[in-house]
């Protein structure tokens, strides 16, 4: 350590802070394609293995190698797993962003950095730990070509020493991450140890941050939402999958492929009980899904906003010809190409009414990886029950980040394949029309090719209750009204909201999807910091269920918290609420591409409620690159 570092640390000692245990965030700033993902996962998992609730968020560029990327790990004894706005501990490995990263830290934060960057000269109110990574990596990695990657396993070792992580658990996490790659395990374990040894020999602990063992994560898993949804699809019995690669949805289908290859190949014949096709584009993906579901298969696709735009026409066909389809929309920032690797909830309005003409679609909105799993299964049941497209509205934050969760529960009971005409039913009905509403719920009976029941001609052109081509005004109106009746029936079948009503609360929160975790944390902040009580309505589907009105009525102000600019969910609600109720709705909007955080919600709500809010100077960390095209 250089003498200047010592001088700085003496200054900090005067501003000694209380120990901060299991309640802080670590941000690792690296260059993408440098192997830092493995290092970050080792850090994340070792904190989990220490029994401390943890979450990880990757802020990465739309690029394969060489651009800045930030990974934030949050340890939270109170189980907060949303993004934390402030960074407490920075690992600065990227020369390009290091200066800016350091300048935006809160006073008292700690920085581990690559020694040649000389970051300690920038500020005197931070704790600096300079590490000569290049010098340390050479002895543990004789092969110079691998050093660039192995180097990144040194900082977890340094952090382990400084924060108090158990090295045995670190090694366990490393083994889990690298699996059977024995040579890689040896090299990386060496780098981990080199980091630890250097920190032990060199540093005196100056920062207040500690990880201490807890018992809060027994049995917990770490999984990305996309993988969780894929497991749900497999358990739902999906048989036909068509997809086109697009960030952030690709890993959903890629996970599905690997799970299906492992668990859905017939043991006796070695043949597949599924077909997964990488289509030529998103249009063809949905075309294949519709063809397959029309022919009776449980079929799905996964995409993001640009793909949804392309699927507009086929969605209208599926709605009108009444073919089931499960479509995962892992939302990213739009419009157009937008920010392909950043998160948003910006496709709500488009998806709800996707197509020309009068259309309305069912949307399921999972908040957690567990719901990504269960709602994947529900989506297939709903799509087949209602013979219509069902959209599962995930987002990049849920789909591509690692989330801590309880293990998933094995599904019980049968699946719902909807109203398929049988011999017995046909006998009972006497006659059959493809689009005849015999049960009054708007849902007709269908036949599938090859079932040797009466055939029909599916079409996107006008048709009557018997499925015959028709341009008659009364046939058109009757059919459109029945489709509306079907949508109304869906209100009683979609997942209901999770409501926490606080009788003392004048303020109600409505949130959905990944905004949930920041919303919960914000409610605690409001209660603890300003004694503001709130109720909470966690919306889980569209169409809305009947209790929405009741919730609005029970509160003076209802904040609809969402991750888009145009208050899209609030707009959907306004379509169904009376003018008086509409005036109660307010918005908390977050749309900078980063996952929403509790502090932003709290500050916004307090400002709108007329509280004096201290103007936070803290800048958004990991803001991303500019230029470089």
């Amino acid at each position: 350590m250089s003498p200047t570092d010592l001088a700085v640390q003496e200054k900090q000692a005067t501003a000694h802070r209380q120990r901060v245990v299991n309640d802080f965030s670590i941000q690792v700033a690296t260059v993408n394609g440098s192997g830092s993902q493995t290092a970050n996962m080792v850090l994340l998992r070792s904190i989990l293995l220490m029994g401390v609730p943890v979450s990880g968020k990757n802020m990465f560029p739309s690029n394969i190698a060489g651009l800045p990327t930030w990974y934030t790990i949050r340890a939270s004894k109170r189980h907060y797993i949303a993004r934390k706005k402030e960074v407490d501990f920075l690992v600065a490995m990227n020369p390009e962003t290091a200066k800016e990263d350091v300048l935006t830290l809160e006073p008292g934060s700690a920085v581990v950095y690559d020694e040649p960057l000389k970051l300690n000269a920038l500020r005197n109110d931070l704790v600096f730990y300079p590490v000569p990574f290049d010098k340390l990596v050479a002895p543990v990695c004789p092969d110079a070509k691998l050093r660039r990657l192995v180097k990144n396993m040194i900082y977890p070792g340094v952090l382990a020493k400084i924060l108090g992580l158990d090295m045995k658990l670190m090694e366990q996490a490393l083994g889990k991450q690298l699996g059977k790659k024995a040579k890689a395990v040896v090299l990386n374990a060496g780098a981990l140890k080199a980091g630890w040894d250097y920190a032990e020999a060199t540093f005196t602990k100056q920062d207040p941050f500690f990880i201490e063992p807890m018992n809060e994560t027994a049995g917990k898993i770490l999984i990305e939402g996309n993988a969780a949804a894929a497991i749900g699809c497999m358990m739902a019995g999906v048989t036909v999958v068509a997809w086109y690669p697009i960030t952030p949805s690709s890993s959903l289908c890629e996970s599905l492929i690997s799970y299906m290859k492992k668990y859905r190949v017939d043991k006796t014949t070695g043949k597949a009980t599924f077909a997964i096709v990488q289509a030529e584009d998103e249009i063809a993906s949905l075309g294949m899904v519709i063809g397959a579901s029309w022919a009776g298969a449980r079929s799905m696709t996964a995409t993001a906003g640009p793909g949804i735009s392309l699927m507009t026409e086929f969605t209208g066909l599926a709605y009108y010809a009444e073919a089931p389809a499960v479509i995962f929309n892992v939302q990213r920032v739009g419009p157009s190409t937008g920010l392909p690797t950043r998160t948003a909830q910006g496709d709500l309005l488009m998806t709800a009414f996707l197509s020309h003409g009068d259309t309305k679609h069912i949307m399921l909105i999972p908040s957690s990886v567990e719901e990504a799993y269960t709602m994947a299964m529900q989506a297939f049941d709903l799509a087949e029950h209602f013979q219509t497209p069902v959209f599962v509205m995930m987002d990049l934050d849920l789909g591509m980040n690692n989330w801590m969760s309880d293990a998933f529960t094995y599904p019980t009971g049968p699946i719902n394949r909807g109203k398929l005409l049988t011999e017995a039913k046909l006998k009972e009905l006497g006659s059959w029309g493809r689009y005849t509403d015999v049960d009054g719920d708007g849902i007709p009976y269908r036949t599938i090719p090859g079932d040797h029941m009466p055939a029909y001609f599916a079409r996107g052109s006008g048709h009557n209750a018997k499925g015959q081509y028709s341009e008659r005004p009364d046939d058109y109106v009757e059919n459109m009204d029945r489709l509306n009746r079907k949508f109304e029936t869906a209100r009683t079948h979609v997942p209901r909201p999770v409501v926490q009503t606080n009788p003392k609360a004048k303020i109600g929160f409505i949130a959905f999807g990944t905004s949930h975790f920041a919303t919960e944390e914000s409610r605690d902040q409001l209660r603890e910091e300003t004694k503001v009580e709130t109720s909470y309505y966690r919306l889980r589907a569209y169409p809305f269920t009947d209790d929405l009105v009741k919730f609005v009525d029970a509160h003076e102000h209802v904040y609809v918290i969402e991750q888009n600019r145009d208050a899209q969910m609030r707009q959907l609600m306004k379509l169904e609420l009376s003018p008086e109720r509409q005036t109660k709705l307010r918005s908390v909007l977050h749309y900078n591409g980063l996952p929403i955080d509790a502090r932003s919600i709290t500050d916004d709500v307090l400002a709108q409620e007329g509280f004096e809010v201290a103007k936070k100077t803290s800048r958004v960390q990991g803001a991303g690159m500019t230029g470089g095209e």
Partner: protein
Amino acid sequence: MATPVKVNRIGLEPQTYKGSKTTLCAGCGHNAISERIIDAFYEMGVDPRQVIKLSGIGCSSKSPAYFLGGSHGFNAVHGRMPSVGTGAMLANKKLIAIGISGDGDTGAIGIGQFVHLMRRNLPIVYIIEDNGCYGLTKGQFSPTADLGSKLKTGVVNDLPPIDTCALAIELGATFVARSFSGDKKQLLSLLKAALAHRGTVMLDVISPCVTFNDHEGSTKSYAYVKDHDNPLEEVSFVPYFEDIAVDYEPGSTQEVTMHDGSKLYLKKIEEGYDATDKINALRRLQETARRGEFATGIIYIEPDRDDFLTQLNLVDEPLATLPLDRVRPGKEALDEIMEGLR
């Protein structure tokens, strides 16, 4: 005593293969094609309940309503029938798919999906009812309109046509043929052979539009096509279930054994034409086009390449109707996955 009813090999009457009454123009080539389709499915003894009829948008795409009324049909969106057909065949590999498209539906809006259908060699009989114009929107040029062909209004086409047969061969289709809606015999033989093929059949049928493209100066009129039809061979098809021996002089006829054991006899008209030679086939298409003629008959055939569903190694039963216990892994599978994530 009632006269005995004529039935095919599976005991069905010709009537069973008909559809609803056509709403296309009187004399439309597409109606002749529908009639040949009815004949071919009847004569081949195909169970209509196992057939799916698919189409895009346009006059051609209306026609599946006019044949095989007992089969399920799907009139999809413009140019996107290939994907719908692909999905349906993935769902149920036991189905027999026939897709009807037009030259606009295939060559313009649908060229992307057409290209990838051909690449995949999906088992489907894909027919282009090719009249070189958009009939349903009153006669605009389509991408198969020939250079110099004239519209009724006098507008001359100055863009080169897309040769869908050449494209299909290039892309990997395994049965590529061209015919003329007015050539009953050739078209019927081709359709029957198509039903015996396992893989993508691309059949381009020149089918004059009597209303918008049948005038002097059009290269897709009845008169022009009759004069410029250049058959490569005489096509005879003998299905596997008919015990017929065909005698031919060695060297005069190419014999092709189809996937199901049926035989195709191609009696050479053009000297030395080998329908299994891809390069030769493409050269012949170029040569006939340069002369302003249409090469008809089987242009290219590859009877034994694996189709898409075989490549996917699917179980023998239709995926659509597999019972839950075969498509939902057991609890131990989920437990194993969860353990891996701890």
